[in-house]
């Protein structure tokens, strides 16, 4: 302690004394003229070194400047300092400086004396202390000798004591061993009672573990009568216990967990595993079957109940308990080789029943309202079965489950198809009604106006329906559905299921039903309204041009990522649609033609042409024919384009006809009915026919208005001709026909593609009626014109 203080004191004085500069730079300091402070400083430095203070001091000194004029600095150069003073200061200042310096030196000297005195005192006291310590240690040495002697004595004693105690120690150990044995024996003796108690309390697990603990011992010592007795008792009790366990097991009322516990205990009791397997499975079966019956019962009373709920419950209850059974089974019977097959058979059997139930349930799911429910239910179903698959690898159950899902999906697609079909038929019925209703109210004028709207709304609603169905079906392939990544759902379902058997079938159905309209209606006398035929024909044509490819593209986008299997090409469907459109239009022409034909036929057949009066008017039926033709023209014009006509002569009005009629027709009558030349009768018309093209009456028409109208007019006029040929005319009968034909000529030419056709047919009619006339005296052309213009 004192040493420390010694070290410090010079440090403290450092600041004050210009000579007290210390540090490691001893050499630098040594440059100084004063040697005493130099030695002191060295001593001081060694002390510091001794006490490890140099670090500290260095840190303190480093801040000191290197200025040689700093009187307190380590690099102080007295010469420089003096020179500097001499240079810079005046004499007075030098004097002051000198006095100040002297003062400082004096004070420093006195300080040093004080320090030296203090330190001297301390050395003296230290010496005293050391001397005193010397004395004390001598005393202590004596005491230590005494202590070691004592310790040796104690050791001796201790050895002798332990020697005496040895015997007793072994005895005690033996005794404690006996004690343990006795406790064990007590356990054994108490075992029967304990087991009984456990039995009473139904703490079977405890009983079994107790018994297991004792069993070996009992076995080992069974030759001793007392142990034998205990063993027998235990056996009896354990048998009873096993009995009870079996009873419990057999009752089956307990939960699956209890059951598996039972089995575990029984196994520990060395019951034969196979038997237990069987029993276990049969119990599990009975429980699962009751589940199934519950399901079945649920299905039966509410066939229309939400699929979701029942499937979910079915899945939850049945499949999870099945899983539980499988797990516990596997845990329990893991060591028994052949039991795996039993389990498989068991699971397969039950799953088959479950599947049949599920399938029945799915089959009952007829409503196509919300597919997402079904898909979700199926997904859940499938997911659960995956769990089974994980538990029981190699089982056929998941595959069968997938099959069911696939079947359900195909079934669903079928249902959608039929739903689409019935939707289509319903829409057609609606259209039919829409066509019929206004016709009743406003006598056929307003109805055709709505045709394009009906068409567009029909096709739009069908398209929407298809889209919504596609969206619903698309759920089957959604990413988050577990079975959607099955190869079936990726490939076949998309191409065969959705594209072929849903979309393509529907389009085919549309065409088919259209064709059906043509066929059935023809025989039953046109039960289909002609406007509907026209509309459908346009619909099919639109399908051919755009809708089919649109629908298929849509389908392909949604469902086909790659083409696996051959699919019906768009062109085939388009061809079919076109064919249907053509058939419908042909049929439309036929029906409309027949309606007009019928009027003409009745008008010809019911009249007595021999005894008719001189014509004054165009017959009303002709006006009706023209009116109807006009309205048909309007109707067709709403849905079909105009089409091309053969070039008309610039004014193909009645004037042309009148010239044609009066000149040629007259010439023909003249030629035909000169009695001298019966041979000439047919000559003109035959020559004419030779050069005109053959006219196909009920032939195919093109998809335009003119062609349609031509077809209808052809049919009507040909009928007129054939009917005329079956009758016999009087003079006025012929004239009436002339008037009628002229009237028709005036109005009909504008509808047809080639007016010569109308000319030709009307010519034939007039010609034929002239042939069939008893008194052929044709009417003056001018009179005919007057009558016709009068209306």
């Amino acid at each position, binding site marked *: 302690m004192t040493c420390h203080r010694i070290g410090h004191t010079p440090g403290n004085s450092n600041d004050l004394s210009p000579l007290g500069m210390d540090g490691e730079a001893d050499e630098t300091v040594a440059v100084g003229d004063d040697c005493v402070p130099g030695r002191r400083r060295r001593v001081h430095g060694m002390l510091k070194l001794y006490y490890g203070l140099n670090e500290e001091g260095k840190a303190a000194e480093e801040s000191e400047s290197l200025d040689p004029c700093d009187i307190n600095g380590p690099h102080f150069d007295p010469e420089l300092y003096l020179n500097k003073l001499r240079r810079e200061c005046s004499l007075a200042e030098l004097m002051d400086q000198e006095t100040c310096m002297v003062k400082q030196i004096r004070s420093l000297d006195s300080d040093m004396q004080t320090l030296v005195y203090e330190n001297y005192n301390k050395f003296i006291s230290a010496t005293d202390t050391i001397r005193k310590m010397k004395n004390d240690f001598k005393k202590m040495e004596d005491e230590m000798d005494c202590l070691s002697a004592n310790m040796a004595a104690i050791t001796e004693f201790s050895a002798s004591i332990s020697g005496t105690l040895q015997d007793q120690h072994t005895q005690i150990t033996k005794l404690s061993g006996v004690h343990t044995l006795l406790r064990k024996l007590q356990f054994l003796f108490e075992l029967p009672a304990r087991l009984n108690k456990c039995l009473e309390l139904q703490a079977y697990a405890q009983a079994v573990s107790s018994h297991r603990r004792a069993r070996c011992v009992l076995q080992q010592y069974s030759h001793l009568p007392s142990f034998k007795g205990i063993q027998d008792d235990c056996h009896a009790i354990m048998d009873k216990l096993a009995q009870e366990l079996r009873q419990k097991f057999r009752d089956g009322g307990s939960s699956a967990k209890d059951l598996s516990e039972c089995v575990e205990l029984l196994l520990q009791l060395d019951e034969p595993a196979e038997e237990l397997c069987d029993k276990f499975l049969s119990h599990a079966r009975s429980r699962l079957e009751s589940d199934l019956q519950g399901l079945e019962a649920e299905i039966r009373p509410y066939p229309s109940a939400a699929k979701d709920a029942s499937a979910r419950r079915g899945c939850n209850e049945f499949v999870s308990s099945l899983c539980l059974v499988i797990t516990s089974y596997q845990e329990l019977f893991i060591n028994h080789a052949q039991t795996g097959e039993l389990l498989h058979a068991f699971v397969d059997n039950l799953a088959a029943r479950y599947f049949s139930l599920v399938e029945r349930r799915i089959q009952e799911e007829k409503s196509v309202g919300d597919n997402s429910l079904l898909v979700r239910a199926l997904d859940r179903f499938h997911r659960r079965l995956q769990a089974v698959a994980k538990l029981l690898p190699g089982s056929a159950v998941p595959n069968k489950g997938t099959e069911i899902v696939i079947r359900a999906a195909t079934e669903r697609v079928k249902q959608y198809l039929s739903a689409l079909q019935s939707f289509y038929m319903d829409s057609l019925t609606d259209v039919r009604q829409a066509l019929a209703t206004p016709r009743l109210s406003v006598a056929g004028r307003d109805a055709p106006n709505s045709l394009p709207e009906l068409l567009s709304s029909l096709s739009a609603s069908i398209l929407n329906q298809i889209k919504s169905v596609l969206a619903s079906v698309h759920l089957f392939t959604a990413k988050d559905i577990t079975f959607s990544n099955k190869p079936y759902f990726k490939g076949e379902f998309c191409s065969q299921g959705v594209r072929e058997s849903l979309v393509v079938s529907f389009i085919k159905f549309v065409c088919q039903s259209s064709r059906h309209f043509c066929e059935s209606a*023809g*025989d*039953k*006398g046109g039960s289909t309204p002609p406007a509907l035929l026209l509309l459908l024909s346009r619909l099919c044509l639109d399908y051919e041009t755009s809708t089919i490819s649109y629908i298929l593209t849509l389908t392909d986008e949604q469902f086909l990522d790659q083409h696996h299997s051959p699919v019906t090409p768009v062109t085939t469907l388009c061809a079919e649609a076109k064919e249907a459109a053509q058939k419908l239009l042909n049929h439309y022409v036929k029906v409309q033609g*027949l309606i007009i034909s019928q009027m003409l036929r009745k008008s010809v057949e019911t009249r007595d042409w*021999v*005894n008719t009066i001189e014509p004054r008017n165009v017959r009303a039926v002709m006006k009706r024919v023209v009116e109807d033709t006009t309205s048909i023209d309007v109707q067709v014009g709403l849905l079909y384009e105009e089409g091309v006509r053969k070039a008309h002569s610039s004014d193909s009005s009645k004037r042309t006809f009148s010239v044609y009629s009066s000149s040629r027709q007259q010439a023909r009558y003249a030629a035909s*009915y000169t*009695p001298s030349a*019966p*041979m000439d*009768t*047919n000559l003109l*018309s*035959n020559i004419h*026919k*030779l050069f005109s093209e*053959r006219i*196909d*009456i*009920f*032939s195919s028409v093109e998809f335009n208005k003119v062609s349609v109208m031509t077809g209808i007019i052809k049919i009507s006029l*040909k009928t007129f001709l*054939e009917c005329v*040929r079956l009758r*016999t005319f*009087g003079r006025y009968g012929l004239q009436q026909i002339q008037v009628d034909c002229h009237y028709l000529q005036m109005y009909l030419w504008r509808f047809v593609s080639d007016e010569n056709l109308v000319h030709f047919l009307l010519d034939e009619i007039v010609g034929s009626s002239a*042939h*069939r*006339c*008893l008194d052929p005296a044709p009417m003056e052309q001018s009179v005919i014109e007057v009558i016709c213009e009068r209306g």
Partner: protein
Amino acid sequence: MEDDAPVIYGLEFQARALSAQTAETDAIRFLVGTQSLKFDNQIHIIDFDDENNIINKNVLLHQAGEIWHIGASPADKAVLTTCYNKTCDSRVVSCAAVWRMPSDWETGSHESPDDTAHNPQTLELLCHLNDSAHGNAACVLWEPMGDGKRVISLADNHALLWDLQESSTQAVVSNTATLEGKGQLKFTSGKWSPHHNCSQLATANDTAIRGWDLRTMSQIYCIENAHGQLVRDLDFNPNRQYYLASCGDDCKVKFWDVRNIQEPVKSLEEHSHWVWSVRYNHSHDQLVLTASSDSRLILSNMVSISSEPFGHLVDDEELSEGEDNHQDDKGKEPLKDSVVSTYEEHEDSVYAAEWSSADPWLFASLSYDGRLVINRVPRALKYRILL
């Protein structure tokens, strides 16, 4: 092998009535009746010389009126019936009569063929089949394969069964059947079935086909709406007793099994206008001839509903030996119902077509402009049927 070109014969008048001379089995002979309101109507007896492809004609005058239907007796070559229109008191009435050809018409024609046009012989009237109570006659049907003693005439809505007595000079109505119903019903045509001991008759009125039992003169079946439009003609399959062909204004030819009249067995729609006549070939009932007012005649091969549905069983060996390759190919195709040929020689509506009674491979068709065309079944088909 080239088929023989059709042979065309032109009449001066318009004509609708055509019949084969049923009793004649050696010569190919057709009877044609003309329709003219102005001139005396004629019956042309057309003989076809198969060897030389030549037509010989003989004309007999039928002065009573224009002929709408003609029927040749199955027993007596010289006897025939006609349905004709005559005008009296500015009314047109349809009548039916039995006629006999003058015995020497054949010799006459040979001696001076040019004369016949100018000075033809006249038919000899045997008896009228008219009953003033029963309206206008549409057609007269001879009992098929009978002894020429029984005919049926269809008049308005009555079917009259006549017994011809005293060498056909007297006709007595032995039985009648009447079509009852709403409106003015009228038989348009009919056919006497050659089956069931000739005890059945089929008639057409409007769109319905009816079958009658001649023993009781009662209706046995009725095919309502057999055709969409008027039924124009009927014919019985000569070999299959329940099969019946019909044609009509809906351009269709339908084949019926009268035991099941709900649906036709088969339906053809080859013509583009009304079909006026349908005829089974007498020997090979797969061959069906149809005539239409689209001026066409169509020969169809209806194998599937014929009495020889599989054709003759021909083994390959036989085929490869016979004929040329072309035929060989054809023979191997499965036999299907098909149109054999469409004949376009006519310029006007064809109202009648008939098979020859002498040559089963030959048929005639008559169009309104008086053109009679004689055609043959294509040889390829003929040989395929025969071999």
